[in-house]
């Protein structure tokens, strides 16, 4: 008796677990940049709520995403860098979805308010170690960054060309932690996506340009990169994929995009 009951229950539990994985037919497949995780996730969710069509997302990296479009393994490729000429020649085209603007932040008590990208790169690679070397106070520079794999870190390091060369004093796991730490340490410098910067820290100008939505959109603020939707030129998308593309490039999606911490392009 005992045995039968336990076996029955186990069978029921297993059955319940299995029914969870239903098939998602006609889902829109996106593939690419790990940094676009948040924005595509938010857009996909909103799209699914509205139309009932699922959007899948594979975080493989920009290069792999572009490759996947070429090989028809996904509907829309996601790239967090501009398409290379070679890739355009292969019949790909890019639609800019948004701009990822990264603010460089320091403690409000820091006198420095303007840096060049080269200087920032030197600070992060440990070439400049003290604020006085760049006419600031005599204080050691405390370099704050994000954990390996973070989209913001990837963006920052690729824009400043410091990939794998940064000498961090702290690697924190959220934008909030970076801001809190920079706000509490007079010698700290950090980076965070522009949308989440608060008054407790000072966002510095890059070559005299203040970070704002306008300067990011017109390209004068240089610590930024585009988020690009990659599709094949002259080839029609599947109906659902086209719907998704129209949805995320429409004005209605702008709020979702800004909530995800990036600047909408359209």
């Amino acid at each position: 008796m005992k045995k039968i009951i336990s076996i029955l229950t186990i069978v029921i539990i297993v059955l319940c677990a299995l029914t969870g994985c239903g098939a998602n037919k006609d889902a829109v497949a996106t593939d690419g940049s790990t940094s676009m995780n948040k924005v595509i996730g938010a857009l996909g969710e909103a799209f699914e709520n509205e139309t009932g069509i699922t959007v899948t997302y594979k975080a493989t990296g920009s290069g792999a995403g572009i490759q996947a479009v070429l090989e028809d393994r996904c509907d829309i490729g996601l790239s967090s860098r501009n398409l290379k000429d070679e890739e355009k020649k292969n019949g790909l085209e890019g639609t800019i979805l948004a701009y990822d603007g990264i603010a460089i932040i320091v403690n409000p008590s820091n006198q420095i308010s303007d840096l060049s990208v080269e200087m920032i790169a030197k600070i992060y690679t440990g070439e400049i170690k003290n604020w006085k070397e760049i006419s600031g106070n005599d204080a050691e520079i405390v370099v704050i960054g994000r954990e390996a794999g973070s989209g913001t870190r990837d963006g920052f390091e690729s824009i400043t060309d410091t990939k794998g060369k940064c000498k961090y004093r702290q690697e924190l796991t959220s934008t909030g932690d970076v801001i809190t730490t920079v706000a509490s340490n007079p010698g700290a410098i950090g980076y965070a996506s522009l949308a989440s910067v608060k008054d407790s820290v000072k966002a510095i100008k890059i070559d005299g340009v203040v970070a704002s939505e306008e300067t990011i959109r017109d390209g004068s603020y240089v610590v930024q990169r585009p988020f690009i939707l990659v599709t094949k030129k002259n080839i029609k998308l599947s109906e659902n994929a086209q719907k998704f593309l129209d949805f995320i490039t429409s004005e209605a999606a702008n709020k979702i995009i800004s909530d995800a911490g990036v600047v909408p392009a359209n």
Partner: protein
Amino acid sequence: MKKNRLFENVVHGVFLILGLITVGCVLLITVYLIISGIPAIKEIGLVNFLFGKEWASTAVEPKYGILPFILTSVYGTAGAILIGVPIGFFTAVYLSKVANKKVRAIIENAINLLAGIPSVVYGLVGMLVLVPAIREIFNVPDGASLLAAIIVLAIMILPNIIKVSMTALDAVPKEYEDASLALGATPTETFFKVSVPAAKSGIAAAVVLGVGRAIGEAMAVMMVAGNVANMPSLFQSVRFLTTAVATEMAYSSPGSLQRNALFSIALVLFLFIMLINATLNFFLKREEK
């Protein structure tokens, strides 16, 4: 009569299943960790993995050495024990043997409250108060360090140590102490020469429990330790075994060597915890005898 027996059997069956859920979870986690932890170790090589001094999982030429994490976890836990055990032990002796009822009730409540504070709150307070304080006091450029983590961990393990030691000390038969007092020993002599030796297994268990808590803590440590994969040193930013898994898991792509290596780290951590549990069982069994 027959109906009754059927009902009994049903109840038994239900209880059996509920009991099996726990066993099932443990088995599932163990098997899963071993299966997903082995491939990366194989690929990297056990010696390179355990004794490699460099961790750079997203570099162009990735390196997967977790010696810095292992040493940091060991040093961090040892440091927390070094600070937490004396405080916890003497508090337990005081509360169990010396304090009057009112004082004991107040302090016990405070300890229970301390035990109930979520670790993220410890981390937050550590980040906002402790880290800047270390920076000011020791005049270092940044306070996020092994020392900050040790202090946070020491406070976090206090409730465990105090409560388990107190239970052990409370259980010492009153006759032992009465006999000691009757022979002319002072109360303090009695506490340390009679009560504490009689409760030593329980106190040892408390220490081991503290070790387990400290080595497994991730959240609070992540917020105060700085998380850079340096070799441990008191004022340097360090990464623990737990935080190594937690920081990179979110962004590692499934199936990549990076993610597999994270599982391997979890497996190493799991082995540490098993070892600690075995030690704990050893002490508890000895107490039973």
